[in-house]
């Protein structure tokens, strides 16, 4: 079995699905000859030709709208936006059109499309290259929002996203694009699009995270274990629809919850999880729910970005605080 990075797993899934289904097409800026600015689409044009692997003009609104037209005709477009921060020009198409078409037409027109984009900060990128705005999309009815945190989940979830008949926002945590290699079988096995993954069992506190910060969360769990605190770690993976059951079941067991996300703290996915958990198991909570998140300010340029970033330490400290505040 090949050991691949998250980025290579994305590429593997695209190769697999384009070969398996001739309706799958890829489009975006620089995705053809150049293989995408991060190289996620490398080799696709050589293998499948420019009719199925299309370099578009530099226009995200166009990409948003084109894919809607294509998908309505039974194609399965997988569009790449170069960075999550550059999806905004396509927001009108995504929000006003892609997300609602099925509902408006009572199922007559469905849109099996995937919008891929690298996201998240802390790679010394210029401004507007570090966005982490999954909550924005999760808030829109009609969109699925998926964020893998490992090569295996990138492969399995992307296959599922392409096979889904609903529009899927597929956000790839670029900070860990190339950091770890895992064995991933190119077996065409998709993962479910509505399930969170328990990465580590524990009894004292539930840690929920997604994307790149799953790594710091797991490291924090290791450190906490050394101090006798047994943390359960959940990779949310699919932001929407939210698999609240897995989280609630875990919190029923541990009695405590800490949510770790890179995005700005207020009005985010963490807030939603906290609300749903207290709705469902308030009386089983032994302590107030904690959040480790980005600040509510514009992500600083990279000279100071390490202060915005969530470090393992931040998670450990927050968890200890939660433990201390336990009833």
């Amino acid at each position, binding site marked *: 079995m090949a050991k691949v990075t998250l980025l290579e797993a994305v590429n593997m899934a695209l190769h697999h699905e384009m070969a398996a289904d001739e309706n799958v097409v890829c489009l975006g*800026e*620089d995705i*053809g*000859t*150049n*293989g995408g*600015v991060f190289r996620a689409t490398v080799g696709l044009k050589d293998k499948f030709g420019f009719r199925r692997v299309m*370099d578009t*003009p*530099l*226009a*995200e*609104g*166009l990409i948003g709208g084109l894919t809607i037209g294509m998908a309505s005709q039974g194609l399965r477009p997988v569009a790449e936006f170069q960075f999550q*921060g*550059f999806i*905004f*020009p396509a927001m009108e198409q995504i929000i006003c059109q892609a997300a609602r078409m099925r509902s408006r037409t009572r199922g007559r027109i469905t849109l099996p499309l995937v919008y891929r984009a690298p996201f998240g900060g802390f790679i*010394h*990128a*210029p*401004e*507007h*290259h570090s966005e982490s705005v999954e909550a924005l999309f999760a808030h829109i009815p009609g969109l699925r929002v998926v964020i893998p945190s490992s090569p295996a989940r990138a492969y399995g979830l992307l296959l599922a996203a392409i096979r889904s008949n609903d529009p899927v926002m597929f956000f790839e945590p670029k900070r860990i694009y190339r950091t770890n290699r895992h064995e991933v079988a190119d077996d065409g096995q998709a993962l479910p699009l509505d399930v969170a993954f328990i990465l580590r069992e524990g009894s004292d506190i539930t840690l929920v995270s997604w994307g790149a910060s799953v790594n*710091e969360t797991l*490291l*924090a769990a290791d*450190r906490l274990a050394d101090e006798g605190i047994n943390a359960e770690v959940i990779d949310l993976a699919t932001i929407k629809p939210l698999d609240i059951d897995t989280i609630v079941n875990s919190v029923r067991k541990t009695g405590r919850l800490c949510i770790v996300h890179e995005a700005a*703290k*207020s009005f985010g996915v963490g807030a939603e999880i906290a609300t749903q958990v207290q709705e469902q198991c308030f009386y089983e909570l032994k302590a107030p729910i904690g959040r480790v998140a980005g*600040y*509510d*300010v*514009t992500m*600083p*340029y*990279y*000279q*100071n*970005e*390490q*202060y*915005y970033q969530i*470090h*393992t*330490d*931040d998670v*450990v400290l927050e968890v200890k605080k939660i433990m201390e505040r336990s009833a």
Partner: protein
Amino acid sequence: MTFTSKSAVTQVQYLDDEGNVVQPLPAWADDLDLLINFYKNMVLVRTYDKKAIALQRTGQMGTYPSHLGAEAVGIGVGSAMAVDDVYVPYYRDMPTMMMRGASMAHNLLYWGGSERGSYFNRPDGALSEDFPICVPIATQCTHAAGIAAAFKLRGERRVAVTSIGDGGTSKGDFLEAINCAGAWQLPCVFVINNNQWAISVPRAIQCGAPTLAQKAVGAGIPGVQVDGNDIIAVFDVMKKALERARSGKGATLIEAVSYRLSDHTTADDATRYRPAEEVNDAWKREPVKRLRQYLHHQGVWNEDKELAWQSECNQQVQAAVEQYLATAKEPPEAMFDYHFESLSEPLASQREQLIEKAMRMAGGEHG
């Protein structure tokens, strides 16, 4: 009525690739000191560009977009503008920004990851009203239209100038902005830096029209194509467009045809998608050599002056680098301090948490 626009656009050029005059020069070009000044600035920003790339390669700066090959566009546009006009740049516009008062050290700070790179004065010492570098493609064009609308509303004889790459002209924002500028007769100049490539996508598959200047036709404004490697042509066309705008006649679209002699940015490898022959060929038309040869022909420039100026450029660039490297980082809490005009309680408490975190990190405890 059927109307067919031939949209024939001819390219304005005064100097050919070898610096020979191909048509009578505009009267202002008799001022050889002005041309020498253009030349010196072009060499300076080229020297800077090389150094900036070296800083990136040695880990002393972040991703950087080279302007190699676009010197005549930037210096020409920046030199033609009045000090109180407003410039709305995109990321490859360091040369124009330098003419507008943002120093090399400012540019280094910006690409070195500090917001202070966007805080600078005009050449006359007043705080600049120019916009910061725009990274999202084409959004700056609509800002320029808005600035021009404000000038028009207030009856000010100022002009808003913006620039954009060839790829950027595919975006709605660009088309929406020139459309509005045409409909409202705004004092605005749009400059396309057509360097032939939008990262890996060549000009030809970006747009089916033979020239980008003719996008102006649909907006109802004049479109001019200029040889972007010929600074005399760029400056002249720009001057006329500015005069036109200042006298209330409205906007102009200028397509400056040049070539991106470098990679897209330091994060890009253009050999993946671009034939070497094409680049070699483009070097024959580059702007710096062309003006140098013209100045040689005029007897106002020679090898000695060249060497002296190059050494002066090296010194100026080195001084800017030292200034950049010696600039202490802003305290981390600056990310809160410029966020809103005043800090609300929740933000103030996050600011406190950040200071605690920074102190903790300074203690070396963070994982």
